[in-house]
């Protein structure tokens, strides 16, 4: 059974221009959104207090606000979380800085006094200092991951491929962050983890295409770089689609059944897998070609006296049957 016909000859490289425009538009929208709307940084990075409570019956948010007002809180937000019976109260960092960790206890007390049968689900308090550190660590992690990948790909392939792979990664991370900003997804530590997983996944896809490109460059005698790139992408198309499909399936299961806490994480990965698949087809190879990858760059060093590689035909060790 084949989802993708096995002899596709889609001219991916012929659509480079359209893809470039498409990517450029997405990136512009992302940067625009990041610049104007910004990210909704979660508690992990801003510091502050979050209290999630479960009510036996859906409460009126006005009543909840009134209870908090009466207890003297001013700068807070109240939202439902997942179901209408779950309420999340968020308090900013400056208020937490004054009163320290005790604030969560007080808020819980105020809420419990206002209604019967309230159950504490979750309390998170992050001091402003910790928030700053976590943000720094997240940013550093991203940079180190990109640097490590750049090194590895340069070592295994060639610098043009490494630059292409990293360009594709930057493209993916920018667009995913743009989508997070556009749809007001709460940007917390799990989203950073998801972003790094996107980096890993997208790279995985890119490497697979590069690997075939390298093989074709070495084995095929005929064909320009663009023709061979097209061939490689087509050859790997059913694999790319199949893997993206299985990964997306489990992510959708995570999104719908994993609970509210894992939502932002699953969302980020779903967007990331789609963008990552697209970029490994259109961005990574494209970048390598624009940078001028040629056959000579990937030829193994042939020792004198040895035969040239046996092109088009299987090497001897595969022919013993």
């Amino acid at each position, binding site marked *: *059974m084949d989802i993708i016909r*096995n002899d596709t000859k889609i001219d991916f490289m012929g659509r480079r221009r359209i893809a470039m425009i498409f990517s450029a538009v997405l990136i512009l929208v992302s940067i625009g959104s990041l610049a104007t709307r910004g990210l909704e940084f979660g508690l992990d990075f801003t510091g502050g207090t979050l209290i999630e409570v479960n009510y036996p019956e859906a409460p009126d948010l006005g009543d909840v606000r009134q209870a908090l007002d009466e207890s003297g809180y001013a700068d807070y937000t109240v939202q439902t979380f997942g179901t209408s019976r779950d309420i999340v109260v968020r308090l900013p960092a400056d208020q937490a800085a004054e009163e320290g960790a005790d604030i969560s*206890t007080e808020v*819980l007390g105020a809420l419990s006094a206002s209604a019967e049968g309230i*159950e*504490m*689900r*979750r*309390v*998170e*308090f*992050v*001091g402003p*200092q910790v928030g700053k550190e976590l943000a720094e*660590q997240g940013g550093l*992690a991203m940079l*180190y*991951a990109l640097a*490590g*990948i750049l090194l*590895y790909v340069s070592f295994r392939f060639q610098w043009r491929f490494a630059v292409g792979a990293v360009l594709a990664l930057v493209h993916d991370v920018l667009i995913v962050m743009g989508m997070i900003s556009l749809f007001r997804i709460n940007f917390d*530590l*799990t989203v*950073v*983890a998801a972003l*790094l*997983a996107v980096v*890993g*996944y997208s*790279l*995985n*896809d890119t*490497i*697979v295409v590069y*690997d*075939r490109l390298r*093989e074709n460059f070495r084995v095929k005698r005929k064909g320009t770089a663009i023709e061979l790139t097209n061939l490689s992408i087509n*050859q790997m198309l*059913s*694999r790319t689609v*199949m*893997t993206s499909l*299985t990964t997306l*399936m*489990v*992510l959708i*299961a*995570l999104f*719908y*059944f*994993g*609970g509210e*806490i*894992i939502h932002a*994480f*699953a969302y980020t990965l779903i967007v990331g897998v789609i963008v990552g698949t697209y970029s490994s087809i259109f961005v990574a190879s494209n970048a390598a070609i624009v940078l001028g990858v040629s056959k000579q760059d990937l030829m193994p060093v042939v020792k004198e006296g040895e035969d040239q590689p046996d092109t088009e035909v*299987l090497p001897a060790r*595969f*022919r013993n*049957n």
Partner: protein
Amino acid sequence: MNRYPAWKYLVLIAVLVIGVIYAAPNLFGDDPSVQVSSARGFELDPALTEVATDALAEDELQPRDTTFEPERLLMRFGNPEQQLRAADVLRDSLGDAYVVALNLAPATPGWLEALGAEPMVLGLDLQGGVHFLMEVDMDAARSARLEAFVDDIRNLLRDERIRYRSVRREGQTLVAELRTLEDRDEALAQITGELPELELEAADGAETFNIRATVLPEVMTEMQQTALQQNITTLRNRVNELGVAEPIIQQQGADRIVVQLPGVQDTAEAKRILGATATLEYRAVDEENDPFEAQRTGRVPPRSQLFFDRESNPILLSRSKIATGDELLNAAAGFDQTSGSPMVSVTLDGGAARRMLDFTTENVGNRMAVVFIERRPETRMVDGEEVREMREVQEVISVAVVREPFGRRFQTTGLDGAREASQLALLLRAGALAAPVEIIEERTVGPSLGRDNIDQGFRSVIIGFCLVLVLMAIYYRVFGLVANLALTANLVLIVAMLSMLGATLTLPGIAGIVLTVGMAVDANVLIFERIKEELRLGNSPQSSIRAGYEKAFSTIADANVTTLIAALVLFMFGTGPVKGFAVTLSIGIVTSMFTAIFGTRGVVNLIYGRKKKLAALSI
């Protein structure tokens, strides 16, 4: 021909068997149990088992199983009702010296336990509980230490009759101003001899002769480490009061402490208890009056106060204190250099050292006692309702004869073994003023959310897993089924690795497993697509299988190494939940390489490898 040599199958089977064994404990669930440990973190006496069993037998309770370890006594019961009753009985009969906590002990069968197989540890987000990150105020600790040195220098100069204008602290340095050059040199010599922790420098002012002193960096580092350790010790004692079965109290970085209390939901209570302090007092023993007489008649001499030691023997102590906990700088257990017997060496700060010297000079041959004072939360039944309140507990922990006059540093000897020495040092440190701590991060998960997280986490793993299985079976037929076997084995191996490493399973960790399941099939997809391609090129099925596996290998390796780089970076930089995700992702990548390449090849070889005339593959 595609055949594996026998040893490859043996490796495959061995890995799978080990995987199944170490993953198995996760299937057995928990026993409701009661855990008894020392309220002070001491080792337990093996005789406790019998005491506890007898106390339970009186109430016709019989534990299903009893395990004694030096740190804890664990008794398992058939159901939660018995567990609760047993906890009540033990609390009443064992008294204050022990902490009785409810626990859920893993019901791993003995033969698995003997192999070292244990279930995964569930993170706080899955079982509910409190996570605190506390920061020790090192600035305050440093200031206190510097002030103590100021006192030390003043006292020293006074004792040596060197006239000085002032001794004060200027930021991180200490400055002593003296009037004459001779005084300065004399002071320099004295301080060098008495306070080796300081680095001295003569720095004369316009009219005065000055000494500038800084504390040696290694002394400061050691002081900070001590301050942190003291806090950890104190926190451990406090946490014991809470009756938490398996708390985690760990140092993180130079000045932080992580406290994790599984199962605790009353965070207000936890914060109050963790914040409570203990102190201690050195007092003279009243040698003139009979403590038993005072206890019997209730008439205590006016200048004395009645105390009790740990065996509840009465003892009369003077009302005035020689030194208190906040003046104690350090206490360490060790061995006396001359006699080799266990001892505890104590260091006091300047003010207390003077008082100690005055007292000991006049009281050689008399006794001195240490009283440990702490505020402990207590549960009492009032009108059928539980009332928790703080009670101040005072207890004499050490009585010793003064052999000779001493001041700043002294030793307590005549202890009953090294264990007693370390226990005394632990208590002294707990009572000393530790640097103040502040909670800088709190994450609490209520029990209902924990349960939801587990349920939802496992549901998404199972649903995602089944979807992948179905898709693979439909798309790749026989080869798909082989990949599904590998995927199942992969899941077992991930669980086994997590259990073996003692890693904590968190919700992001489960997400990591889900993601790994989705990505693990990638290796098989790559191989199978390659085999299809080879078939289309007109190669025979057998050589296509071989070429498919061999050609796909470098692609799979490259792709996985890059993902591993991202996962390792996450592990290095991530904290808490993110780390859990990185751990499962890394483990998943490694195990999936094994099962998807090595494992499936073995099965494929078994199915197709021996057939000489193979017309087609079901792929």
